[in-house]
């Protein structure tokens, strides 16, 4: 044992906990159950799951490590935290890959049963880190979790390899005890989830209890942390991931528009769970179409849009590349459609399970010809709900495909979400065209929005043909007239540009000489960094963009007010390029491209450097 001190039970305003183990060890489950319990307890929280690339990489190896990090707090927090205060390491590989992140003086809970020679070797440890001083400076708590789990479940009837599967519940029990979390919600969940496998349910519950009791009774574990409920704004909350939020947001958008939702997709990490979530809600009239590929997915979606559905198609970078020809067609036919890109680390297949924001320029320019489209991005998991509705609003109102960006981090991490009142959802509907007196003119535009009418098959008298060839203004007939092409190109451009007047002006949070501009999932890290920095006398302001094309109308003016503009992005400076191109003002880019979200401290450091 390398424990040198015994910390006392402590009140904490925030704690970062990371569960790490083999991908077969059930760490995602342990983490999300702890999160759920903390949510119900009333903490504010933010999570960061990190999966290995393989379905199930070989047990015990470094690439096989799966982790789940959660920050719980009694105040409003924005990120899953920069470095864990508590690390649960189920095996040597988990320790090896995660130790570097743990805060100095942090607490490490170790499953000693896994620290035997073979596993140590697989993790690349020459000597046992529990013995060789590697863990100096940390508080180390150990438990032979496998042995104890076996003992705990021996009366449940469960046999064989299955027994050890419950060890994540043992770890969860210890941590629950450590943070004074009630175990009932977890027990309820287990009973529900494993209703058809009562032995498994019983084993998990016994392991959970054993872990809890182990904490309670073992001398070594005689302390707890207290993290009080957070004083969040009053309301009803749920804990939500980005992919859930975007799915529900799409359903809400369809409802708000008075349309049925059609979601055409082809599975791809990290977007698949949107398809899976939507497939479960057919009672909302949602049609999910799992196509043969991304091109068919967007094609079918476009067909559905043509006949009056809210068409949405979701994928990740490689899929967007494939869809781009069809998106261009939708743009030319001026039909509403939502194109969701849950970005992942590229280029090419890249690192599919890791997050990145490097598809922004593709969202703006990844189509042949002049094909401007609205591009919007969600900034947090729950924000994806509202952003999806905004995508639907723009699509229907302006008769245009809309690119909706999230990323792997938003998709899989979660946060408390104050539930909106469904009755308050905006009405984003727009009537279909109905037969008028004269000839139907499919490209006669609304003078305000420049949107053309949406005339759906089945409507007598509005029979018309759409297509990808250049269209004559007003009539929509095929036209090769040079001036017409120029006019139509400008009209399509202006239609999108005008959206700038239909969105809220960019708002600046805080004040200071430096403005930090971000977009998408960097919201939490930037806001946290700006707060910390301001507290430390380097005042900085934060502007977070939901609308990337067009930019809010006042953005240029805002930029003018700051000498220094910092743009942190999980790419090599794509928003920076857009800002410089648009406003001819030099900005400072802070790129990060590691497949991981920013830590607030990284942005804070840059602010210090710039100040």
């Amino acid at each position, binding site marked *: 044992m390398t424990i040198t001190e015994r910390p006392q039970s402590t009140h904490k305003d925030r704690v970062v906990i990371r569960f790490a183990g083999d991908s077969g060890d059930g760490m995602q489950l342990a983490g999300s159950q702890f999160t759920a319990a903390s949510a119900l307890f009333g903490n504010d929280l933010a999570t960061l799951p990190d999966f290995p690339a393989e379905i199930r990489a070989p047990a015990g190896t470094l690439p096989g490590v799966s982790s789940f990090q959660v920050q719980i707090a009694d105040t409003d927090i924005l990120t899953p935290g920069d470095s864990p205060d508590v690390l649960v390491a189920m095996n040597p590989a988990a320790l090896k890959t995660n130790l570097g992140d743990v805060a100095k003086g942090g607490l490490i809970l170790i499953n000693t049963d896994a620290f035997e020679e073979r596993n140590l070797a697989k993790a690349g440890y020459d000597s046992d880190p529990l013995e060789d001083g590697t863990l100096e400076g940390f508080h180390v708590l150990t438990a032979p979790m496998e042995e104890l789990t076996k003992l705990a479940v021996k009366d449940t009837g469960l046999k064989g390899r299955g027994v050890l599967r419950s060890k994540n519940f043992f770890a969860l029990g210890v941590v629950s005890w450590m943070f004074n979390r009630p175990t009932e919600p977890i027990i309820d969940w287990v009973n529900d989830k494993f209703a058809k496998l009562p032995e498994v349910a019983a084993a998990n519950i016994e392991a959970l209890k054993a872990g809890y009791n182990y904490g309670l009774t073992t001398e070594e574990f005689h302390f707890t942390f207290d993290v009080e409920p957070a004083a969040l704004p009053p309301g009803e909350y749920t804990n939500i991931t980005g992919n859930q939020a975007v799915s529900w947001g799409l359903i809400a958008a369809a*409802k708000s528009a008075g349309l049925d939702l059609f979601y055409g997709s082809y599975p791809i990490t990290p977007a698949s769970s949107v398809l899976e979530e939507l497939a479960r809600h057919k009672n909302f009239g949602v049609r999910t179409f799992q196509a043969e590929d991304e091109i068919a997915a967007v094609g079918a979606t476009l067909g559905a849009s043509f006949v009056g559905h809210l068409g949405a198609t979701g994928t990740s970078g490689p899929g967007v590349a494939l869809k781009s020809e069809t998106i261009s067609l939708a743009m030319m036919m001026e039909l509403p459609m939502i194109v969701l890109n849950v970005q992942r680390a590229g280029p090419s297949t890249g690192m599919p399970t890791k997050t990145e924001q490097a598809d922004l320029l593709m969202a703006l320019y990844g189509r042949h010809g002049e094909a401007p489209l609205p591009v919007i991005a969600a900034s947090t998991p729950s924000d994806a709900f509202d952003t999806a509705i905004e995508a639907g609003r723009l699509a229907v109102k302006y008769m245009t495909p809309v690119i909706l960006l999230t990323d792997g981090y938003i998709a899989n991490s979660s946060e408390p979400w104050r539930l909106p009142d469904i009755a308050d959802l905006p009405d984003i509907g727009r009537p279909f065209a109905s037969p008028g007196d004269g000839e139907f003119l499919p490209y006669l535009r609304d003078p305000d929005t420049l949107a053309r009418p949406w005339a759906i098959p089945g409507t007598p008298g509005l029979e018309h043909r759409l297509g990808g060839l250049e269209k004559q203004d007003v009539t929509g007939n095929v036209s090769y007239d040079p001036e017409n092409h120029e006019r139509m190109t400008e009209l399509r451009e202006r239609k999108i540009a005008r959206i700038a007047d239909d969105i809220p002006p960019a708002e600046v949070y805080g004040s200071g000489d430096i403005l930090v501009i971000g977009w998408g999932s960097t919201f939490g890290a930037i806001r946290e960094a700006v707060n910390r920095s301001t507290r430390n006398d380097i005042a900085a302001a934060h502007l977070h963009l939901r609308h990337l094309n067009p930019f809010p109308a006042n953005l240029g003016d805002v930029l003018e007010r700051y000498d220094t503009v910092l743009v942190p992005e999980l790419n090599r400076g794509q928003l920076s390029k857009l800002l410089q191109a648009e406003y001819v003002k030099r900005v400072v880019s802070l790129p990060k491209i590691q497949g991981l979200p920013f830590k607030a401290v990284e942005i804070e450091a840059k602010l210090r450097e710039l100040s």
Partner: protein
Amino acid sequence: MTDTATRYTRQDFQTDQEVRWCPGCGDYTLLATVQNFMASLDIDKEKIVFVSGIGCAARFPYYMETYGMHSIHGRAPAVASGVVVANPELSVWVVTGDGDALSIGGNHLIHAMRRNVNIKVLLFNNQIYGLTKGQYSPTSEAGKTTKSSPMGSIDYPFNPVSLALGAEATFVGRTIDMDRDHMTTMLQAMNDHHGASFLEIYQNCNVFNDKAFLDLTGRDERDHNRIYLEHGKPVLFGPDHGNGVVVEGGNARVATVADVGVDSIHVHNATDLDPGPAFALSRLSHGPYGPTPLGIFRHVSRETYGDLVSAQLVESREQKGAGDLAQLIRQTGTWTVD
């Protein structure tokens, strides 16, 4: 059905757009046949949708006074799938070329077929890329000299009927532009079929591949080579029906009736759930050369994709009630902060 007067005439299906195919192109005949056929139906024309890809053939929707979409190259079956799944009330037709359907669009085609999406695919097979001015296509005969194959094409062509049967299309037929009556019969059968249907239409491109179908259109040749398949009838053809088709152990071959006796002649059963015999018949020719079957190879019933989608929507509502958004967002549990 086609002889009942309906409220429509061919003119009702003509648009104000000038038809822009080369003079003499087989597409003109096909357009007229389809327009006449549509006028003969009793379907509200606003319920009809024509979807196409890109190519000469794919211009078709511009000339049909129905709803229409001239989409992009190869993707019409995918777009049409979305159209009909979203609105199963519509009568959805796909017009496509041999390049559009079988080259770039081959995958969407076979997937629409296997899923039995309720779309009607008219494949205008002129065995050439017309719009791009004459390169060989996946149905061009091997050895063909074209702009992109100056020494002769080395691509072995698809037999579109065999391919569609391999993908288990529930309706597979073949016809030829010059035989308007036969084509109309095929259109009628497709119209009546519930599910994916596929019709290969030999279409003459007089500019880049003239006379490709001479064996089936030439005055001297056609009577010897057209094998009209008729459900429930022995497969006989040629002058005085002197020839017939024998299918033995999976091999179909042409025989002289006088030699084998009429009882040995294969009796065509388009409704056989097993596509084996239809496939055997599809092997009688490879391209429009020599005796070539025309007509309906297969016509079976299988649940359509669209119906299954609709059924699940209904079932889901029955099980869970109509979607309630307020409930949905609470489904994983909530807590309240006062």
